[in-house]
């Protein structure tokens, strides 16, 4: 077999920027207002009584509060967000979890469901056996329970929805591309399931069968995944990458539409820029049609 096809650089398309864009865009150092009646929000600072932007992005006004939302940033957690993260450290009574946030998040031993049901008491042995439940490098999904004063997040997995993740594929995108929705867990009709973490970590896995209540989310199936399932997951992964490169918001409908419009192409071809562009264009059209 010949090695990968050599590709020449292509000229970037100049995006046609319409002047009728009524968004208020600012760059660091731009004075937003010199009126002192406003409140200073994220992405701004006071410079000699003038409210000044400190990041490049879009100005958001809520009554008297002025914020600047950067286009791309690390994950700002809020209570109730669903996150996917990786254990980086096992400490006393807590795990440290990397969640694309600016400080590592904390998962306390007291905020996980241990095997044996919800009402189990925690004892010293549990503390010693923490590494048996979750060890460094394990992927988990969890919910944000609270935010500490320094911005670090405290997570919990006290529901059967959450826990350790088994076999699947992780895709990392910018957190701002994940649309906030009522639910971030979807069993897609194409035969795979998806967890859209608010932190931009997306987990693709084969749709599970019946779940065992006693396992408390620590049991992971190690049975081989069938080839069709793996193909569906790979296709979904490439679709998400295509949507992310073209900055389309990710939610169940957009992922599904992209999956369907990618059907005529081979899975590996979806990584080619021109195929990506075509698939994303069709997806965009369908989304617009659906919106009415």
């Amino acid at each position, binding site marked *: 077999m010949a090695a990968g096809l050599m590709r020449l650089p292509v000229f970037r398309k100049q*995006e046609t*920027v319409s002047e009728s864009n009524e968004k208020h865009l600012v760059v660091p150092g731009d004075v937003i207002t010199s009126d002192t009646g406003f409140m200073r929000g994220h992405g701004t600072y006071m410079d000699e009584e003038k409210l000044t932007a400190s990041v490049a992005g879009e100005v958001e006004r809520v009554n008297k509060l002025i914020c600047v939302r950067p286009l*791309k940033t690390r994950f700002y957690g809020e209570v109730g967000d669903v996150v996917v993260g990786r254990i980086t450290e096992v400490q006393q009574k807590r795990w440290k979890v990397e969640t694309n946030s600016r400080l590592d998040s904390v998962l306390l031993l007291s905020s996980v469901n241990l095997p044996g049901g919800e009402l189990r008491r925690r004892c010293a042995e549990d503390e010693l056996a923490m590494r048996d439940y979750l060890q460094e490098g394990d992927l988990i999904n969890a919910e944000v329970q609270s935010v500490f004063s320094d911005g670090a997040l405290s997570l919990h997995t006290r529901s059967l929805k959450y826990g350790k993740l088994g076999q699947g594929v992780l895709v990392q995108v910018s957190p701002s591309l994940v649309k906030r929705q009522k639910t971030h867990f979807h069993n897609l009709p194409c035969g795979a399931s998806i967890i859209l973490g608010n932190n931009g970590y997306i987990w693709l896995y084969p749709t599970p069968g019946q779940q065992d209540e006693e396992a408390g989310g620590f049991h992971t199936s190690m049975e081989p995944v069938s080839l069709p399932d793996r193909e569906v997951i790979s296709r979904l992964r490439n679709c998400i990458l295509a949507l992310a490169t073209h900055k389309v918001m990710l939610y169940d409908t957009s992922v599904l539409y992209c999956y369907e419009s990618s059907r005529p192409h081979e899975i590996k071809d979806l990584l080619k820029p021109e195929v990506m562009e075509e698939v994303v264009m069709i997806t965009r059209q369908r989304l617009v049609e659906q919106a009415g």
Partner: protein
Amino acid sequence: MAGLELLSDQGYRLDGRKPSELRKVQARMGVFTQADGSAYIEQGNTKALAVVYGPHEVRGSRSKALHDRAVINCQYSMATFSTAERKRRPHGDRKSSEMSLHLKQTFEAAVLTSLYPRSQIDIFVKILQSDGGNYSACVNAATLAVIDAGIPMRDYVCACSAGFVENTAVVDLCHAEESGGGTVMSLALLPRGGQVALVQMDARLHQDHLDALMEAAMTACRSLGQVLDGVVRQHLQEVSVLTAE
């Protein structure tokens, strides 16, 4: 004068520029997807690539973490093929570590580090092709990368070099002008407020000329600031059009 004639009788420099003229600047933001922020800049033949990771948990020894602000970690390196003579050590030599330190000082002055206690911000800069003004290219590229990463800054940091040749201040020196042994000043400026983030000068200069040289460098930094501003606004427009629902 024995060596090269850096300024012709007509007042033109080696590459045909006027003393106060900058080289052509081309820049692009968001060149990598895996990094939090990245940028590429070309200033004439000097090309630099900057990548920003963070703010994230302090890696390595935890004792480095500061309880009231973020740590800025800079690493400057030059590609082995960046100079006429092939470099043996791309980073870690004395010159590079000094440059890393200067970059760190510059960005500590501009980034609002107090917003991120106990975190770390990594700035990695690489010179791909070196033709004078390495420090300024690095600072300008890193500024764009920091903005791309969405890290709050007081203002842009723009840097430019300036030298003094035959009683004239010349700005944005190329390699030939820089290696002549004359005075070279590197200046990093926050253009809106006019605060100086860093000044560095090699060789001696008469005190009477200092003001003129500083003024020339600052004017050059301001015009560079306008170019960077244009790049950022263009990038902002393009991305926000795409993400619009």
